[in-house]
């Protein structure tokens, strides 16, 4: 009992001190779900074809599709600021033609297929500002299974003339094919 009291006192003090500091200085600490950048280039020294800037939440033992990203509900595909995708040239994204430019990527997870949405309303936080009228593409992407990964990850896999954007978390893998031949 004494220990718990002492601990909560300490915790309160630490919290007060730390919030005090950030307010005074306006510098924030590192995010729990840090951002990351992933590029797709046709070769190592070529200018990029695609860039994704996204937040990387951890699973932390939670049941993802119950607690974190429930089936049927829109998700920011990351954490914090909405995930941003830059196409440096026109592409076919999962069957939909998309012009070169910067978009926000959303997803609606489901058991066998996810809906992936590209929206032209950029620089937004999470899914709170999502509006269907800004949709540029809405495509279905298949779910497969692979080894467990703790941190939500996005990567590219070249496959002949197309490249797959692969979203990976826990044992789920969601694959969206992208083509440049338009």
């Amino acid at each position, binding site marked *: 009992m004494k220990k718990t009291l002492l601990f909560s006192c300490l915790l309160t003090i630490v919290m007060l001190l730390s919030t005090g*500091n950030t307010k*005074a*200085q*306006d*510098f*924030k*600490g*590192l*995010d729990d779900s*840090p*951002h*990351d*950048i*992933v*590029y797709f280039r046709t070769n*190592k020294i070529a*200018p*990029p074809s695609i*860039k994704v*800037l996204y937040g*990387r939440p951890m699973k932390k033992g939670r049941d993802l599709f119950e607690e974190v990203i429930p089936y049927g509900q829109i998700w920011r595909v990351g954490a*914090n*600021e909405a995930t941003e995708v830059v196409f440096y040239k026109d592409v076919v994204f999962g069957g939909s033609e998309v012009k070169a430019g910067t978009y926000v990527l959303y997803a609606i997870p489901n058991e066998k297929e996810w809906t992936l949405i590209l929206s032209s309303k950029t*620089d937004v936080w999470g899914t709170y500002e999502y509006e269907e009228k800004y949709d540029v593409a809405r495509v279905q992407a298949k779910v497969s299974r692979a080894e467990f*990964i703790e*941190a939500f*990850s996005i*990567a*590219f*896999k*070249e496959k002949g003339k197309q490249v*797959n954007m*692969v979203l*990976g978390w826990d044992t789920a893998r969601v694959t969206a094919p992208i083509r440049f031949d338009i």
Partner: protein
Amino acid sequence: MKNIAISCAILCALVFQSKAFSQRFDQVDKAPVDIAYLRPNQKSKPLVKVVYGRPAIEKGKVFGSLVPYGEIWRTGANEATEITFYKDMLFGNKLVKQGTYVMHTIPGKKEWTIILNSNTDTWGAFFYNPEKDVARFKVKTKKDMRDPLDVFSIAFKKDFKDSYMVLAWEETRVDIPLDDTSPMLAKI
């Protein structure tokens, strides 16, 4: 000698990057990427966005040591620090057109050189080409002894009517003036 070391580092970086082609999922970076926005108010569209890597001090001093004085620095970690201006602005009193740039700096004891360059989507400062400079100016450094920071940070601050982008690590602060309302902007 140092050049050899740098070339080796580039080579390693390239070799590691190439692995990404077999859909290897990257580990979470030790110096993670972060985003800072300048918005006139919470609901408005952004004026400026910065995407930068955030290295942390592990031991010892940063400036003049880990980040040497007089040498170009990526001003973050990993991918070069990227700034987007959503409209034409004065950045360090230099006119900068709306667009996306890479920001490098040359730290110094008393003043830093700030460089905006149009060669974007690059790694570190290894691909720096002065011909692509868009702006280059100097800013005096300041110290904030009360709040030394372990993690490199970029934030925006308002001081009465003036806005600044602040680069901060340890007790060093570099306040870069920003202005989107100057009458000078109307002339272009």
